[in-house]
């Protein structure tokens, strides 16, 4: 009872504080309508130092897109970032390997390559052709920020599960302890509630390594992606390349393991009239499209869910800077709201992180189950 009253008090204080801040900031905006601040901004613009002010879309996309360097923090003119290896193959210049800081953040060209910070190929490394125009190189195998984040998460995965496996061999047939305790129910959940019912008692074991790896890879990366500081914060599972590869794994495994029954359902669906199969193969075409849409949907769902979560959080942060440009007080007032919403969103994202990993694994398991289902 006491705790409940305390909670209500805290909530009312927080809400009151929020209202107060908003009122104060509204007043300061009115007072500061023509202050020297704007003049200084104009001066900056004349000098060409500052750009057009805060751009939320740049801010958001800088955070959710892949990059050739891992930006950690910026303060005034000080930028701390880890440059990553650029590996580029072009028809005219061959294979080139160098660190990204050679470009000095796009201020300099290097070896006939340029880091575009504007225009159509913004954010990409382009090749400078002989006539001065630029084009994307044939192959860009750069070890980007997302690749580093993937590597980090995979090392984490290895470390966690190899130590857990060691715990099992060290204490066979004993109750789990520590990390084992946390992960064992999840492993059992994937086995007993995802793989077994979807694939079947006799065939599920073959798919367990993939399902477990995919589940924990997605979950770990979703969680790491929520951590705003290095080495977290990379938008790995919200990257279309990553989700595409994961979905391709599912697609390839499904196709390889497809049995006679599976292919029969695609090319000669039993139980439908013959004239929608021959001579115009309407059902087979639909089935083949369905074969492709399944992994496509897996790819889009994970990508969209994670990216959307990041965009919403970054949107709330953008609000602080948008209002902060109007007036410092307003920015401060909004920051409280933004923080509250961000905390709420992060909580939601924690849930989404698990749900999306679950959904991807479950659907993969269902597809495997469909591919290996026996005729009955």
């Amino acid at each position: 009872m006491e705790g409940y009253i305390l909670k209500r008090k805290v909530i009312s204080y927080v809400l009151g504080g929020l209202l107060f801040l908003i009122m104060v900031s509204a007043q300061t905006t009115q007072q500061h309508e023509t202050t020297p601040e704007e003049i200084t901004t104009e001066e900056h613009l004349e000098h060409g130092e500052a750009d057009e002010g805060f751009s939320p879309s740049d801010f958001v996309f800088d955070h959710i897109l892949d990059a050739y360097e891992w930006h950690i923090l910026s303060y005034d003119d000080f930028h701390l970032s880890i440059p990553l290896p650029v590996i580029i193959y072009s028809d005219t210049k061959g294979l080139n390997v160098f660190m990204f800081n050679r470009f000095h953040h796009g201020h300099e060209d290097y070896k006939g390559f340029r880091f575009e910070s504007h225009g159509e190929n913004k954010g990409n490394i382009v090749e400078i052709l002989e006539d001065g125009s630029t084009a994307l190189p044939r192959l860009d195998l750069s070890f980007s920020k997302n690749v580093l984040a993937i590597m980090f998460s995979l090392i984490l995965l290895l470390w966690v599960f190899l130590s857990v496996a060691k715990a099992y061999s060290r204490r066979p047939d004993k109750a789990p302890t520590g990390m084992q305790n946390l992960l064992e129910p999840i492993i059992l959940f994937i086995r007993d509630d995802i793989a077994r019912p979807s694939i079947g008692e006799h065939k599920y074991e073959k798919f367990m390594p993939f399902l477990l790896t995919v589940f924990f890879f997605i979950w770990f990366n979703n969680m790491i992606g929520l951590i705003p500081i290095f080495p977290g914060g990379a938008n790995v599972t919200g990257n279309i390349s990553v989700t595409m590869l994961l979905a391709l794994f599912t697609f390839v495994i499904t196709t390889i393991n497809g049995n006679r029954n599976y292919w029969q359902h695609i090319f000669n669906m039993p139980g439908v009239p013959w004239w929608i199969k021959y001579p115009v193969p309407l059902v087979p075409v639909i089935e083949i499209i369905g074969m492709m849409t399944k992994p496509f949907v897996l790819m889009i769902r994970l990508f969209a869910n994670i990216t959307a979560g990041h965009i919403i959080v970054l949107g709330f942060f953008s609000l602080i800077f948008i209002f902060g440009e109007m007036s410092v007080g307003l920015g401060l007032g909004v920051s409280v709201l933004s923080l509250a919403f961000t905390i709420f969103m992060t909580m939601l994202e924690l849930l989404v992180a698990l749900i999306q990993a679950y959904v991807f694994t479950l659907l993969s398991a269902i597809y495997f189950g469909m591919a290996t289902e026996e005729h009955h």
Partner: protein
Amino acid sequence: MRLVTPDIGTIFWMLLMFIIVMLILKKFAWQPILNALRNREQSIEESLRSADRAKQEMEKLQADNEKIMAEARKERDKMLKETKKTGEMILNEAKNKASEESKKIIQSARVQIENEKDAAIADIRIQVAELSVDIAEKILQEKLKDDKAQQELMEKLLKDVKMN
């Protein structure tokens, strides 16, 4: 590095790393973990089953014990009853024998008494006869002391004979 265009570099590196990690995990993590879990489940199931079996055996043993106890009790009761019966029988027999013996003794005593009595009676009879003869002799001697009395008797006797 755009939002919805797959990036070949990321795909290449991830494919490489992901497959390697998946294979390592498969060999050194997933299989050992899944095997350990299965073994543990089996051992737990086995233990539960053996515990159940032990419980059942225990119950059976207890039932057996009770049965044996009941049997023993019954046996004891039976033995007690038999002993009682035997005791009674022996007592009865002894009683019977004793009474028979006593009867026999009494009988023989009676016979002996009878014999003694008979002998005594016979003896008395002889003595009485002798006594009576003696008395008669004495009486006769007294009566036939004088001749006259002898004469008279003679006559009387002769008279009796004559009549015959």
